[in-house]
């Protein structure tokens, strides 16, 4: 069976569901355009990441159990978020009695861009997106899921998001001065270390602005929500889109 004929579950992070339904819609439509059979399991809830990163992993056992039950029967689980996927794979507490299901889940859950490049084996997407685009490499996708080469490591350069976007007609890919520096979102860090979080966000925005970025994109709406919140408050005209939105628009 070709990979795209398998049954794919869409996992939509809670804040995307609530604040950015357009990103979820774009993800769904994009996968459908690529010939995938996608279902959104209605019973899904938050994956538990914000609690776990705040130091309450032990309180996410029920959430994790529920998550496994909801998604265990699908061939793949795909989410427009590196951060939530990393949490499910690495930090969700081990559930006694569900070892097999949990371990299988870790192997079949993918962040959107890695699903496209690694499972669907898409070399590049044909379409048009005539804009100057800056890419924010969210840390959990970057250094957790290894969605692109880390500037810290001595390794052959690669970037899964760039691979998907760079050949779109008219798209100008921007190289940043600090290509994978954290934006300062960091989950509850955003409020527990508010001053630093804001400064880091401002510094990231300044890098994109210095390169005349028109649209800032990335694979995690949490980082983008933070950057966009700072940009809006300061009257910064830069636009924000999730990579799913760009790819979905480009091929329509």
């Amino acid at each position, binding site marked *: 069976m070709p990979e795209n004929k398998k049954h794919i579950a869409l996992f939509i992070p809670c*804040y995307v569901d*609530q604040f950015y339904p*357009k990103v979820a819609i774009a993800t769904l439509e994009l996968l459908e355009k690529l010939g995938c059979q996608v279902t959104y399991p209605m019973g899904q*809830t938050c994956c538990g990441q914000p609690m776990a990163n705040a130091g309450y992993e032990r309180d996410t056992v029920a959430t994790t159990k529920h998550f496994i039950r909801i998604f265990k029967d699908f061939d793949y689980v795909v989410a427009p978020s590196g951060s939530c996927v990393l949490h499910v794979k690495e930090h969700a507490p081990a559930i006694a009695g569900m070892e097999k299901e949990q371990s299988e889940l870790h192997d079949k859950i993918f962040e959107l861009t890695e699903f496209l490049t690694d499972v669907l084996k898409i070399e590049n997407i044909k379409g048009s997106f005539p804009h100057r685009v800056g890419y924010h490499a969210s840390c959990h996708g970057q250094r957790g899921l290894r969605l692109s080469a880390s500037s810290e490591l001595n390794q052959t350069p690669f970037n899964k998001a760039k691979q998907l976007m760079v050949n779109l007609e008219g798209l100008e890919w921007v190289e940043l001065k600090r290509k994978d520096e954290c934006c*300062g979102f960091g*989950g509850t860090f955003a*409020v527990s270390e*508010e001053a630093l979080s804001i400064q880091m966000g401002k510094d990231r925005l300044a890098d994109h602005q210095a390169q005349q970025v028109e649209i800032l994109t990335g694979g995690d709406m949490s980082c983008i929500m933070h950057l966009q*919140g*700072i940009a809006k408050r300061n009257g910064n005209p830069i636009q924000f889109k999730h990579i799913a939105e760009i790819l979905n628009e480009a091929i329509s």
Partner: protein
Amino acid sequence: MSHPIQAAEFLQDQAKSKWHDETLWFVRDKRDKISKSVPEWENLRDLASQIKDNVLANLGKYLEEFEKNAKANNIHVHWAKDAEEHNRIVLGILQEKRCKAIVKSKSILTEECHLNPYLEKNGVEVVDTDLGERIVQFLNQAPSHIVLPAIHLKKKDISEIFHEKLHTEKGNEDPDYLTHAARIHLREKFLSAKVAITGVNFGVAETGEFVVCTNEGNADMGVHLADVHIACMGIEKIIPKRAHLGVFLRLLARSATGQSVTNYTSHFRSPSPGKEIHIVLVDNGRTAQLARPKFKNSLKCIRCGACMNTCPIYRRSGGFSYESTVPGPIGSILSPGIDLQKHSSLPFASTLCGSCTDVCPVKINIHEQLYEWRQEITKAQPDRAKSLAMKIANGVFAVPFAYNLSGNMMRGALKILPDSITYSGLNTWGKQRDLPELPKESFKDWYKKNRK
């Protein structure tokens, strides 16, 4: 004071904090470039990590081997279970030698043990001879970085304190001029000291020798002119064989400052005729850390400081914001093991971005240990939840935290709450950030209408 308060204060001086960030980024960038000039770089990190794994699994054996060989080489070996005993041992040697003034080269361990104030209280003048350390000592400060002790200071600050202490020209901020003044001042100290103290970068079990790395040559100036050399060494600094130095020395300076090696790498095996070498092996919490399976890897640290230079938090909050001897990411996983209450905000002073783990030359999983410390701290401090709940109550975090109970609860709340509340001081998220615009329906609602 907790880290967030200190950090906010550091950020008040925008020009200086920006300089601090950019200067340390420059050091990291140098490290990136030089590490990429070594094709086997990642291989070396693996080797270093594996050697350190072996050290931690055989620590007792290597320490005994080291002691035996060092003694055979005429080195006096002392053991200190804690900082207090370490300080007492050092003072004891000084008193026996009737020594009232010492020179000391960089040693984070003696900072950790608060040796300077202890010796001063007991009538011994301590002169830190590393230029950066001498500067902060003049200012009555601790180093703010383990490799770059005075990185929090501008040359204006240094010019002022040198004018006061060394009578340099007022307003002369030229680094060459100031360094030369320090050279003359410290040369006198070197010539008159009978005892010199150094830290230790590596102790070699196989030979009983220890290695000290500097660029200034201050450790050697001190010990070769003095009659007695006291080397203070954490027990985790041991490595099995001399050949392993090849691995660690290729990594250390490149990771620390982006240079291929320090200009001086000194191997002390036995004293010159008529002189003495003492080595103090210090535990001070290290065996306790070794007994914590999730955190024992932190003992692999070779104190290069790369995690500080790369940390987006450290660069923007400065070393003092951590209020611990070793600041930055590695400090944030070491310090809670020493005093959980005092250092409880440190594991949260991170976005878990993972850059520290990727630069670490011995591959310590620093960001994962930060995560694990968070789990420990919330158990030890139930009040933490309350203060966190206050901060997330009105912001975007209410979504995931409330989502389990009712998916729509927060959407409702956001709509009902007037802007005056969502953007008030109560809502930390909204103080300097706009909240996302609330769409008319959630994805769940859209999906029900459009796909079922």
